[in-house]
């Protein structure tokens, strides 16, 4: 009983929870910054730069504006971060799932809203007009991403459900398990548009270039973050990095889950047995997941960042509800008719 409790606590605190999110998230965003710099022929900051930023912000004074509500101002970032960490617990790492029977894909879709909400409420509570404008844009960005995301998730559910004979499959663990047995969904023709659409959603959800109208530092002083300073700001920056991890690992699990099957076969081929095999599998899973996340970050965030300029908010909305949604819809229709 106590052992169980310790195990679950370790899940939440260490892997795949808090510590893992902290390290990988910041590392991913460091790699992102480095890659963007290299693409622009700059040297770029060290890969550990986000860590420096985070710790520096922890050492700064926290100014609470007189107009702000102190409790909301301080708690909102923490709730957002906690929400993200919990979300990460529901995303399996190939064969390893911390909590599979708590939440399904639709719940994950809604949990993705919690960090955005926390930043909106925290920013709104300061009363700054910049925060108001930022909030408006953030909400529209969330709104824009929602439709394609919904379509992609429904397409995947339908595809896996039809293939496994249950008709519908909302459980992410099941989706990964299916892929481990039958190869990645990216290999299926009908899922390719959905995967592309999801890739396009990643920068929008994480609020990176060119979809960062909500946090445009040059025009609206980083919007909702305008009044934040010190450690709460650091927590928001951390949440932002962790969200990159969440979105990319969600992509891996939705479309590239088949790689986990390869890892299992590899471990089997090595002839290991028992605990050693399990440990090695998890280790390899994590390493592979991390590498894939890096690649996805490079493709979906860094590259897009380096080659585009910031869009206006109505352009973001239009882009997502036309181009990206159409791609996802194609996938959904194909999956519906069993292709």
């Amino acid at each position: 009983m106590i052992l169980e409790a310790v195990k679950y606590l370790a899940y939440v605190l260490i892997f795949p929870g808090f510590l893992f999110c902290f390290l990988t998230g910041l590392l991913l965003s460091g790699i992102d910054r480095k890659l963007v710099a290299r693409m622009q022929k700059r040297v770029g900051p060290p890969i550990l730069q986000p860590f420096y930023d985070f710790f520096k912000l922890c050492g700064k004074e926290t100014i609470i504006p007189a107009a702000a509500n102190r409790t909301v101002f301080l708690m909102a970032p923490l709730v957002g971060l906690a929400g993200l960490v919990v979300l990460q617990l529901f995303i399996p790492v190939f064969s390893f799932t911390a909590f599979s029977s708590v939440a399904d894909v639709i719940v994950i879709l809604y949990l993705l809203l919690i960090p955005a909400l926390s930043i909106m409420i925290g920013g709104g509570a300061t009363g700054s007009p910049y925060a108001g404008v930022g909030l408006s844009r953030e909400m529209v960005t969330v709104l824009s991403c929602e439709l394609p995301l919904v379509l992609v998730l429904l397409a995947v559910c339908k595809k896996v459900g039809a293939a496994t004979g249950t008709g519908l499959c909302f459980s992410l663990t099941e989706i990964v398990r299916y892929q481990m047995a039958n190869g990645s969904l990216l290999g299926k023709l009908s899922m390719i548009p959905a995967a592309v659409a999801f890739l396009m959603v990643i920068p929008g959800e994480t609020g990176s270039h060119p979809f960062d109208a909500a946090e445009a530092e040059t025009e609206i002083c980083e919007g909702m973050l305008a009044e934040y300073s010190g450690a709460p700001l650091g927590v928001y920056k951390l949440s932002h990095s962790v969200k990159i991890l969440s979105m990319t690992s969600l992509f891996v699990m939705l479309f590239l889950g088949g790689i986990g099957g390869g890892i299992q076969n590899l471990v089997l081929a090595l002839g290991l047995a028992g605990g050693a095999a399990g440990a090695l599998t998890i280790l390899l899973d994590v390493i592979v997941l991390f590498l894939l996340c890096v690649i996805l970050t490079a493709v979906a965030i860094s590259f897009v960042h380096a080659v585009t300029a910031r869009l206006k908010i109505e352009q973001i909305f239009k882009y997502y509800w036309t181009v990206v949604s159409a791609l996802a819809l194609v996938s959904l229709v194909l999956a519906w008719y069993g292709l």
Partner: protein
Amino acid sequence: MNMLSLQHFPIYSIMVLFLGAFLIVIFGQNKVFRHTVALLATFASFFFMAMLFKPVMLEGQTIAYWLGNRVPAGGYAIGIALEVDALSLFFGLLVSCVVFVACIYSIQYMSHDDNVPQYYTLFLMLAGGVMGLVLSGDLFNMFIMVEILTFAAVALTAFRNTANGALEAAFKYLVVGCIGSTCILAGTIVLYAQVHTLNLAQMSALIPGNLSSATKLAFALLFIGFCTKAFLVPFHPLAADAHGAAPASISVLISGVLTKSGIYGLIRLSYFLFQSMALGTMQFWLVFLGSVSMFVCVTMALAQHDFKRLLAFHSISQIGYVLASVGLCTAFGISAGLYHAMNHTLFKGLLFLAAGAVLHETGTTDLGKLGGLSKKMPHTTVLFLVGAFSISGIPPFNGFASKWMIYQATYQRAVETGNIGFLLVTICALVTSTLTLASFVKVTQSVFFGQLPKEYENVKEVPFGMRLAMGILAAMCLVTGLLPNMVTRYLTEPAARAVFSVVDYINNMMGSGYAQSAMAAQPLNPDVSFASAGVWSPVSWLCLLMIALLAVTIVAIAGKYDRVSIKTPENRSGKYDLFYGGEETVYSQVGGDDLFWGFKHNWRHYFSFMHELHSGVVNDYALWAVVALALAIVYALIVL
């Protein structure tokens, strides 16, 4: 017969409300007396309903009560009956509970108005009307109750007749409401001409086998009649007007309770009287109507600039969810729909009460004029946020649990039938949910966050009684969201099962064996399974969130997270002011109806079209009603 046997409780729970109304008319000048009677009557009504919980919900009984003990003779139900099956009781519990909370709220909310005795009389009449409607076992009595509640609702809408638009809203509601009531009466009488009875159970046995053009016409008439009571599209402008103008405690009843009576009527009509839900075309009709309602009203809500009007449109949007889910004709779908109906009553009640609190303190509900109230009314803000999160389906509040079930139900139905239309409903529901979130973010920003206008410097928190009422509803929102399994097992699943056991319903009323002998057609009897493909356990999620939050907070506090520089008079000079690009702080509130212009810009043609369409002229709304009636008649004649 023992006066305290359970048999009598349904009639008691209606009568106490009317009795209370009567007493307040006579002795209502005394303030204490009036409040005591109103509270006692509403609580007693709730108590009688709650006493029926065990036999009806847990043991699956149907309680039949014949007024004057005139039981059916010779296969004909002559007397007037009350029939309480799990479906009726579900709505009865919901209604009486919210009525009680609204009554607590009224005491302090209405303290500044004059003619308060009349208010309580009408309030209790409205509550009694709805209770009578959901417990009645007689179609003509349903009509009477519809008239009573429409009448009380109209009068209460116009209660603050000096307020802007109250009279206008009341008149529009009266006109279209009367068209609806007349439709119900005409439908009732046409059915009577066919089967020569008014008892619901007997009609359910006789009608399905004897469909003729006349009964089909009656179906369309009754359908439109109940649609006006539920304010479904195209009757939604009335809801917006009426909710916006009525006092908040009445808006709670109109939106949370009155619309439910319409949904109840539709369920009784299509699942019991006509048993037509097995038809794909009927399912299409209901689901389509529900989807259109949910989408049109949520977009209308996004364009509103009045707090209560915005809430009113949302309430129709949520009713759309309920109808779409109920129209699926699966046990799981009905369970999900009823669950959402319950949640809607709770969170919409909470939101209207919060809007009422804002109105009570500031005197306006215009989103463009408010702002920054979170510093002045912290409790109201938190309670409002609970309601806002619930309605936008943010876990772990109750809105999410039921919406999640609705997504599963529609998608499952789509996969089972291979009909891509149901899939569109799922997508529509998911997108609508996000749009709902957007409009509540707008309200939050415009009313509670942002900057406080000068004239509201002296605003105070609302009195305890009002906060108590909101607190009760907020706690219920959280509890029903955290324990979805309990709610479905003890409330919605018995009700959903009752919907599918028409034969038992008839036999209970008319004597066993009646259904088998009288029914020409085989009743609808699909397998009643409540299985779903997804998993969601809110308690575990909340535990995990709490652990994570605790961990993060401990780390944060250990790292001197809230180290704040000390405020002293010397360095007060501007450090703690907001950053305005270096300028001194000036009043500049970002909010109001145009907050999401990035979204609205892309939809500008749609929005301007909708704006033109909702012209506010009562003739137009009446015309919509007539057109809807004509369409319903044509559709019913063709497909039924």
